[in-house]
């Protein structure tokens, strides 16, 4: 038996691979844009979520307009509403429509995975690029939605110039981690085609522990500790908390960024490991 790697042509140059991945991303972005009408309704759903969360926070917040978070910091209602708004929009952007987190399950079912495998670039990075394209397609809609979300919820300028740059920096691992998580989870479909349950659980768990509903600072401490141990918070909570200056001071900011990047490396490794097992399955079972 020949391994697919044995059949592969010589490795492409870095430039060639970059072009190939950009092509994959563009392809999937355009495919997404075919469903523009769906985006309109997905945006409405997002605005509804923001509106509901804002209603709840307004209703429960003390008269004084501030509430103590973990570590004794005070969080004003305005900050809380801004958090809810930004976190919802960012998490919406990073979580594509549909039950499955990536197109992988569909490609396995349709057999088009064989085409992906025959391409001279690694399958895993191809899928990351594809997922990146999907997120990219949603980006204009997220930008359009933001002002409306701000009306439904609230807004705040970055806490400082430092907070703004920390946010910008943290976005890179945040996006990467979201893509990596989606690819890793959807590889379940190499083992079973009926993975609806897994995807549903992933979606909900990721949403909650990313801090899209409640910031970690208002979770009961054991739940917050658990969320800190999981990778999901690095996609949403960390960047927004940096932006709002809830994580501040050189030490904590650098730690937060380091944790994000650590997860990027770890998730990359996990993805490679899972893929090695999945490939073994594909080769043995002939797809």
């Amino acid at each position, binding site marked *: 038996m020949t391994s697919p790697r044995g059949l592969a042509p010589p490795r492409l140059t870095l430039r060639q691979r970059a072009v190939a991945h950009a092509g994959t991303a563009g392809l999937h972005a355009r495919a997404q844009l075919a469903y*523009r*009408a769906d985006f*309109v309704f997905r945006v409405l759903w997002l605005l509804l979520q923001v509106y509901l969360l804002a209603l709840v926070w307004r209703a429960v917040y003390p008269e004084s307009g501030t509430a103590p978070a973990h570590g004794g910091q005070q969080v004003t209602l305005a900050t809380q509403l801004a958090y809810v708004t930004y976190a919802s929009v960012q998490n919406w952007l990073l979580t594509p429509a549909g039950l499955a987190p990536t197109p992988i399950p569909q490609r396995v079912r349709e057999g088009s995975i064989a085409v992906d495998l025959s391409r001279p670039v690694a399958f895993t990075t191809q899928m990351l690029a594809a997922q990146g394209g999907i997120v990219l397609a949603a980006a204009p809609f997220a930008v359009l939605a933001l002002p409306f979300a701000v009306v439904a919820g609230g807004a705040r300028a970055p806490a400082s110039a430092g907070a703004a740059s920390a946010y910008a920096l943290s976005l890179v691992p945040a996006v990467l981690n979201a893509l990596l998580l989606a690819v890793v989870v959807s590889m379940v479909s190499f083992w079973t085609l009926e993975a609806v349950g897994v995807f549903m659980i992933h979606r909900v768990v990721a949403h909650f522990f990313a801090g899209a509903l409640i910031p970690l600072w208002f979770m009961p401490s054991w739940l917050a500790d658990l969320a800190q141990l999981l990778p999901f918070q690095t996609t949403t909570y960390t960047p927004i908390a940096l932006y709002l200056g809830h994580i501040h001071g050189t030490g904590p900011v650098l730690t937060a960024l380091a944790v994000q990047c650590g997860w990027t490396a770890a998730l990359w490794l996990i993805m490679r490991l899972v893929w090695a097992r999945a490939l073994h399955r594909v080769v043995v079972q002939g797809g």
Partner: protein
Amino acid sequence: MSGPIIEVEGLAKEYRRPVRVEGPLGGLRSLLSPRHVTKRAVDGVSFALAEGELVGYLGPNGAGKSTTIKMLTGILRPTAGLVRVAGLVPWRERERHARNIGVVFGQRTQLWWDLPLRDSLELIGRLYGVERARHRATTARFTELLGLGPFLDTPVRQLSLGQRMRGDLAAAMLPEPRILFLDEPTIGLDVVAKERIRDFIATRNRRDGTTIVLTTHDLDDVERLCRRIVLIDDGRVLYDGDVARLKERYAPHRRLVVQLADGAGWHGVRVPGVARDDEADDAPGQVTLRFDPAGTRVADVITAVLARHEVTDLSLVEPGLEGVVHRIYAARGAA
């Protein structure tokens, strides 16, 4: 029981379809201010069928065939005109009508996709309220006739197209409907499967007296099964009558294909009404002659050919329905 079992008079169907608005927010705009186009798919079709007839309902793609069938089966409500099938107006008395008819769409199955074929047949029997003993007997008979035995316990989604089609046919006929509608029943099937299905259809018509309306692109089906055809195009009936008479009218000519011996030349025949066929695709050493058997005797033509040529083979070709139908559509397109 006299009088037609299917009556169609001045039947018309217009489709009003929403047009998708292009451009940004197109989906939302088509939702808020929908625009429509109207298309008349069936435009004044009339015909009548007597009980026990087997009729081919033919026409090119988009001629309005399927739309007519859908009105006859109760799926669509006509825009104008009258339909009466076994005394019922299909769309108005839909469920009663459904118990009178069987329907097979070649393209898609009526069976339960995830269940074994046996379960689907069982369900159909119960859903149509067929008496148990009678249902068992019919199932056994159809299983035998259509050779369903080997795959009765296979889920329908795993069946080949030919197997699925036979299963569909059995399911449609289990309630022993008075009328069977077949839409492209042999599409995509191999020769053996086609033969089996045609046999089954012919037998149901002959032995059980089931009235059958057959829509197909495969004119072999029609030649093999139908005596009468209704030809439609552009939503109107072009021809309604005998297959034989249709051929006489649109393709009166016979062809005689002559294979000359090696090196022999063609010197022509001097028989009035016989001409070389310009449309024929003759191989080297081959000559096709055309004549009207009403005016010229076949024997005379053959004698004349043999008198002047050294010939290795002769064959007389009847006009195929295929060519006839092509000619009709072509003539209509030119008009």
